[in-house]
């Protein structure tokens, strides 16, 4: 509609409607957004303003579809969260002067186009979010979702992503200590690559913030030179894929971990010396987002001279310079009197620090190109006035409840069955069809990469650089020893595709509960979470419904467990040719362990810290069950109201049980412990046998393969009897289920040598990654 457009003053007064449509398409600005720009400016956008609005109003930068819902996480914040609202990452105060800064971020789109560089720059980007706040990065984690191994390009994608993470992370010297790698057909055409990084602030370390201050201060560009890579990258990441991903290769940035390492050391040095007034990395939409956001946050303006930006490619024009997503660059503000000292530090690290502008008291960004003023506008118009959408969405209905043939789903929510509800008739029918033999099920799994050992992946990550790693990828959760207090910092990721597919709300609750319980069975407790919400197209109401339900579920469980959600990232448009991925909210969870003993299977020290693997032969094995959700068969599962009206009271019950489990581990000598994951009890127990010690247990095949939320196993010395009374009083089921023995796995009809089990699991993955 011609009437939808405002009169255009410049640069071309005779712009035809078709040209305008082309232009809107090129800059990925909708007609409604174009109108909004006109209202904000009081005129039509001109020149580089198109590029500015395109970048900062992209989904990637503005969170326009998710903002209204992400605000809900604010209710999870606790006094332990040091104020860093709107900053690059969140900060949690661990006490004793130790603070952690952490965040998880997606790099799904670039990694599908060019896996090695996509994954590498994902790691680089998240590291910059951490050290830009003055915190030294001490650990990374990865949450990876791949398609079936037989899907097109999948072996190369897996290999490329792993090489990207290892090539970058190892070189910058930040250990990759944990993660999750899942394989499922839902990711065949959209893989997920989420990287998390954790930084540590010691008592003497100042926090650096991004709000610009002090008119007259210098605006300084630091790091790698600017090239054409990643121009329009933010807008690209805010679109679905059509068939041809090859054509998008020029949108992908190239990373240089060596530069990043120099940036880490030099930035931490100038921040530590208090030479920096404000600092932000140039991430998505590069110089545009960093400069506009820093100015807007400070309520000030910048005078920016684009011709002073160091260039790798001298043919670049102002628009490309503004939008370039070249990696390893930072923008900072410093007092003019400190500039020479600051530049000297960067120079010692071989980096240039170039003054490209000044802070102005007026709230105006003035952008110059060889003395010519290209634009002058209030940064808040672009940053704070970005559109916010309340995308259409419905009320979440659990698929299980829909299937359960209640008179209406709405009624079912209100009168959801209490936790003692009997299985539905269809489930009972199905029970009769349960398999009776375990052996064939296990043999089948041992042939599948999805069940294979992840060793060949994480063996490529340096897990111990930094000298703090007590437990790395080999273990269920990572443990780092904090250098001053000697407490254990725990790190785990959550978000299991198998549960998300069944019911996104149960899966979202599980994304927090699973790693929290993993911490509890080691004697630790969660202290903070970050999220990375991977969804399809938010313009589809059914996707938006799942998104809203997931956010609320994560908020509810985090409130119940008193876990502040301090940072996060949203990745929409994970769809190709109209087909979206299973909604996949990922969680990065940090926890604390009062002290670090000897973790893992290497030695039993007598300290109350269970390993992951069996420690001795002839130990007793105890199963502890939280009967919330139980799989009856592939199609039906008994949902104990987790996603229903009583969620909040149930969640606070789980919080009490979690604390009791942690207490049990702290006060009893547990040799080893694990939370049982996918595949049920027999498969889970087989995971304990990496130490070479086997086990024997007698249960029905059905009990040995069912997936449930949650089961955990504790290995206890045969002469000891832990005090389970508190757990029983809280409604947990405790049973002695078997014992450990020499190198043989024996469960129902399944008999296998421990060594053979591991050889087969390793072999299936080696076919994928040598």
């Amino acid at each position, binding site marked *: 509609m011609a009437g939808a457009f405002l009169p255009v003053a410049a640069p071309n007064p005779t712009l035809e409607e078709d040209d305008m449509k082309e232009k809107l398409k090129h800059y990925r600005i909708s007609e409604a957004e174009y109108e909004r720009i006109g209202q904000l400016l009081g005129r039509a956008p001109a020149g580089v303003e198109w590029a500015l609005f395109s970048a900062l109003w992209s989904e990637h930068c503005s969170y326009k579809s998710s903002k209204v819902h992400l605000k809900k996480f604010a209710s999870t914040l606790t006094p332990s969260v040091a104020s860093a609202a709107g900053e690059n990452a969140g900060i949690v105060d661990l006490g004793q002067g130790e603070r952690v800064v952490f965040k998880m971020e997606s790099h799904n789109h670039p990694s599908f186009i060019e896996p090695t560089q996509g994954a590498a720059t994902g790691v680089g980007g998240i590291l910059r979010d951490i050290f830009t706040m003055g915190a030294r990065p001490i650990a990374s984690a990865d949450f990876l979702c791949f398609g079936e191994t037989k899907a097109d390009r999948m072996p190369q994608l897996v290999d490329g992503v792993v090489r990207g993470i*290892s*090539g970058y992370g*190892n*070189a*910058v*010297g930040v250990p990759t200590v944990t993660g999750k790698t899942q394989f499922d057909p839902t990711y065949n055409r959209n893989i997920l690559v989420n990287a998390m990084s954790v930084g540590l602030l010691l008592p003497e370390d100042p926090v650096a913030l991004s709000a610009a201050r002090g008119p007259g201060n210098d605006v300084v560009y630091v790091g790698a030179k600017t090239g054409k890579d990643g121009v329009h990258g933010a807008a690209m990441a805010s679109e679905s894929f059509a068939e041809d991903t090859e054509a998008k290769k020029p949108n992908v940035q190239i990373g*240089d*971990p*060596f530069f990043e*390492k*120099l940036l880490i050391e030099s930035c931490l040095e100038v921040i530590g010396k208090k030479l920096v007034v404000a600092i932000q990395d140039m991430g998505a939409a590069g110089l545009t987002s960093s400069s506009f956001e820093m100015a807007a946050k400070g309520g000030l303006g910048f005078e920016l001279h684009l011709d002073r930006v160091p260039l790798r490619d001298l043919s670049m024009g102002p628009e490309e310079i503004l939008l370039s997503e070249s990696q390893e660059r930072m923008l900072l503000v410093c007092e003019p009197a400190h500039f020479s000292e600051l530049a000297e530090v960067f120079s*010692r*690290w*071989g980096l240039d620090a170039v003054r490209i502008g000044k802070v102005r008291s007026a709230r105006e960004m003035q952008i110059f190109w060889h003395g010519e003023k290209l634009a002058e506008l209030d940064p808040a118009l672009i940053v704070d006035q970005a559109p916010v959408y309340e995308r259409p969405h419905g009320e979440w209905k659990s698929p299980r409840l829909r299937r359960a043939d209640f008179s209406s789903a709405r009624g079912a929510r209100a009168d959801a069955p209490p936790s003692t509800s009997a299985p539905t008739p269809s489930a009972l029918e199905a029970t009769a069809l349960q398999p009776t033999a375990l052996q064939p099920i296990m043999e089948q799994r041992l042939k599948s990469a999805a069940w294979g050992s992840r060793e060949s992946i*994480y*063996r*490529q*990550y*340096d*897990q*111990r*650089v*930094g*000298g703090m*790693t*007590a437990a790395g990828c080999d273990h269920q959760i990572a443990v780092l*020893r904090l250098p001053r207090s000697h407490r254990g910092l725990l790190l785990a990721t959550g978000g299991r595709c198998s549960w998300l597919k069944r019911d996104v709300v149960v899966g979202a609750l599980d994304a927090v509960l699973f790693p929290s319980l993993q911490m509890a069975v080691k004697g630790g407790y969660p202290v903070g979470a970050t999220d990375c919400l991977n969804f399809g197209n938010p313009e589809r109401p059914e996707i938006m419904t799942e998104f809203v339900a997931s956010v609320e579920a994560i908020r509810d469980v985090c409130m119940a467990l008193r876990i502040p959600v301090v940072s996060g990232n949203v990745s929409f448009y994970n769809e190709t040719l109209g087909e979206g991925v299973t909604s996949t909210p990922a969680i990065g969870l940090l926890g604390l362990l009062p002290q*670090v*003993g*000897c*973790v*893992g299977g*290497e*030695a039993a*020290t007598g300290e109350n810290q269970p390993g992951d693997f069996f420690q001795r032969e002839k130990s007793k094995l105890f199963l502890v069950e939280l009967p919330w959700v139980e799989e009856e068969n592939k199609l039906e599962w008994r949902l104990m109201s987790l996603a229903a009206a009583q969620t909040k009271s149930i969640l606070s019950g789980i919080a009490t049980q979690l604390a009791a489990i942690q207490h049990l581990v702290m006060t009893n000598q547990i040799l080893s412990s694990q939370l049982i994951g996918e595949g049920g009890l027999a498969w889970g127990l087989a995971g304990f046998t990496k130490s070479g010690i086997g086990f024997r247990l007698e249960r029905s095949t059905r009990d040995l393969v069912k997936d449930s939320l949650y089961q955990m196993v504790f290995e206890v010395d045969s002469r000891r009897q832990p005090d389970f009374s508190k757990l029983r009083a809280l409604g947990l089921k405790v049973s002695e289920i078997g014992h450990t023995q020499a190198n043989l796995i024996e469960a129902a009809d399944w008999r296998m040598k421990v060594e053979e089990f591991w050889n087969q699991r390793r072999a299936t993955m080696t076919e994928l990654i*040598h």
Partner: protein
Amino acid sequence: MIGIVRFPGTNCDRDVAQWVHEQGDSYKFLWHLDRVADLSSFDALILPGGFSYGDYLRSGALAARSPVMASVREYAERGGAVLGICNGFQVLVESHLLPGALVRNENLRFIDDWVELETVSERGPWGENLAASPPTLRLPIAHGEGRFYASDSELNRLEERQQVWLRYVDNPNGSRNNIAGVLNEKGNVAGLMPHPERAIFSWMGSQDGRRFFARGGTKSHAGRG
């Protein structure tokens, strides 16, 4: 006092500092551009791991040509104790202070793992420190280019002159003769791919890294040139 050499891209410098500190010794960092005329006040020099100058050419090749390495060379020639770990080992090999070459792992991938090592030679300050029983130790490795290579004749010479310092019990990377660490002819310069500084507390999974320093620090053994 131990000198710890830092190149741009070194990333185990702080870990090595922690290792030295835990042994009750003091340390000082040396920067790659430092051309120090006299390093004789140091009891030993350590070149930590990492990716010096990004390792884009050949691991350690650029670092070997840095100003500080001229000083390290002089120190070594006067008999001073020098130890290179991982990338530091690669730098010493590229500097021809140690024999052989370190090339890409046989599987062409980075490998992070624990390895068992056996001590072979007890020569020099580093060999002597490890000589005390037991004969094997457990350390982590983390490298992409750690496969030790030397020609047949050179290997024979190394074996004859007891320059092979450490051997993998189960070879992870295809190193010839399972070599994980070597010594120079005099025995005062040593290099190894595994990381002793990552095995100094029981919670790390091994404390064998502590055995690289003689009781009472390196002072009694490492020469002052």
